[in-house]
């Protein structure tokens, strides 16, 4: 896939309003976004989901057309040929549901978190993140619908330092990954290469997983390391909330850790290990076992005389 020009990126930035998407991450984001959109289009056309031919589609989506010309990513002839083969309704339904869910990655808090995971520099590189329930509450409450956000592509944005936004993004992300888990549950992707010619559920799942891996690439060492910092802060937040608000129930720490690990492993394993997701320089692949999970003991924060002290909990996984 070739690089998208600055002109195209600027054009897109005007049409898809996301704040603070400039610089190196902005370029990565829009390239990834365009690749994903075109990939969905190509797959959808092969499945017969998009009725119109490519030219008509481009006419309705001139920006995508512009990007397509630059990316040279779509074989128009194949798309037109494949669109005449209509697979069963359940295959297109699976595609439609995934396309719908994928839109959830554009949530501004998830984008903020993605930036913190992928940018050249990140607040997460300090190895420590802290977010109280109160901070998170404010961040969520301040959430403004994305269509009301202003675009400032030309101005250099500040580094994402708002950890509450990152935490909000993580929580939204977990809900989204959970939905993908539900959608793809029971569909095996083993031995299913993206180049397969058999269009079945496994093929659709593998292809879509590859299209989305740039959003959260758990084979990228730096991403995994930074995500671990967020997860650690998340567990601390959970500990604090469950401790401070007495109820007739509590959380099962070990089981919750297992559920998160399983969710992330499923996400990682659905994509093709050899698939090259676009990522920023310095990112290196990691081997097996690179799934992020809290490695430090979970710390419990307690408020006492306006000060927080940390209490080690014996809740380390594995």
């Amino acid at each position, binding site marked *: 896939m070739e690089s998208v020009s600055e002109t195209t990126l600027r054009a897109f930035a005007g049409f898809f309003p996301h704040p603070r998407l400039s610089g190196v991450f902005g370029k990565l984001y829009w390239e990834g976004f365009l690749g994903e959109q075109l990939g969905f289009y190509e797959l959808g056309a092969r499945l017969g989901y998009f009725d119109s031919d490519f030219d008509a589609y481009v006419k309705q989506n001139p920006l995508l057309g512009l990007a397509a010309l630059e990316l040279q990513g779509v074989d128009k002839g194949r798309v037109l040929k494949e669109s005449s083969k209509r697979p069963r309704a359940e295959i297109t*339904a699976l595609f439609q549901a995934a396309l719908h869910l994928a839109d959830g990655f554009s949530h501004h808090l998830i984008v903020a978190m993605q930036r913190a995971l992928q940018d050249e520099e990140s607040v997460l590189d300090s190895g420590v993140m802290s977010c109280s329930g109160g901070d998170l509450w404010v961040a969520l409450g301040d959430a403004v*619908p994305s269509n009301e956000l202003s675009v400032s592509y030309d101005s250099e944005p500040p580094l994402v330092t708002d950890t509450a936004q990152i935490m909000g993004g993580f929580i939204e992300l977990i809900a989204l990954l959970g939905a993908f888990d539900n*959608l793809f549950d029971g569909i095996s992707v083993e031995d299913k290469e993206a180049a397969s010619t058999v269009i079945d559920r496994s093929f659709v799942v593998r292809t879509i997983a590859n299209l989305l891996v740039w959003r959260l690439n758990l084979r990228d060492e730096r991403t995994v390391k930074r995500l671990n910092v967020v997860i650690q802060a998340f567990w601390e937040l959970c500990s604090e909330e469950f401790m401070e608000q007495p109820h007739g129930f509590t959380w099962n720490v070990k089981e919750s850790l297992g*559920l998160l690990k399983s969710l992330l492993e499923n996400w990682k394993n659905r994509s093709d290990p050899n698939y090259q997701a676009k990522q920023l320089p310095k990112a290196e692949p990691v081997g097996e076992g690179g799934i992020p999970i809290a490695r430090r003991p979970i710390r419990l924060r307690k408020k006492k005389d306006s000060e927080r002290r940390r209490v080690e909990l014996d809740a380390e996984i594995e």
Partner: protein
Amino acid sequence: MEALAERVRHVRVVFPGYEGCFALLSGATGPNVKRAVIFVHGFAGSAKTTFADFLSLVDDDETADRWWESADLYFYHYHLDSIFRKVPENKIRLANFIDQIYPEPPQQMFAAGAAVLRNDFKYEDLVLVGHSEGGLLLRKVIVDVADSDERIENYKFGLRFGQTAAEPEPRGLEKASMRLFAPAIGGESVTGILGLLCNLPIISLVPKLAGAKVTMNAQATSVSVPRSATDEYTDYLKMPCFRAHILWADRDQIVVAEKYRRDSECRNRPLGSSHTSVCKPKRNYLLPIKFVQNGVRDGKC
């Protein structure tokens, strides 16, 4: 309805004027589409994730009956409002949303360019599906509708004086069937940040051995009023909208599983299900799809 040889699939369409809300419209022609099924998520949920896999499974011969081909599905979204706004406010917005759909949905949803899926179209039936707080909101919407129906008031008045007139025929939303997953009709134990965390799919909850009393305010007006009002209506009305069918989770720490008097609850609770998972169908858990279609019969679903 004539037999539909090839399975008719649904097409996702954005719902106009309500951010985040969407519909799955059946590809069947006008006369073959009978009903609207409206899904309402709960606290900190979303239209996208709460009922996620209804989207793909209703179009699959292996997982869903053909009943679904004759249904349009609508997914209401109020994610931030469910966290930050009070129940009465959320109820009003939901009532407006439902009014947009039943019996006559917005025509603009059925047209794309020159192509028109259906014209001058009305639904015969309505199924309201709620999860958690969504269930409570739906019950309040129905009570409001009944409260403003003078025919019901007159009928009740007549009964008091020994009149034997027939029960008024349900009209509008009174025709709705109600399917509720773990509804917060007996109270909800957590809201705020803790509620947000508890509703995540990765948080496993367990009861405390020496548990504090479940704190949810079952006496709160927003919880107690629809209960007493609905129970009163069911004393003299048989309309199905007051008699919900309920599927509780197996292990639910979030809501108090206490139905209204005339509700039908499924006694075979899905093993291992939690408050958040009970409404999410999967290939190996198709109960939610069957439950929405058939409800509860003889305590089973």
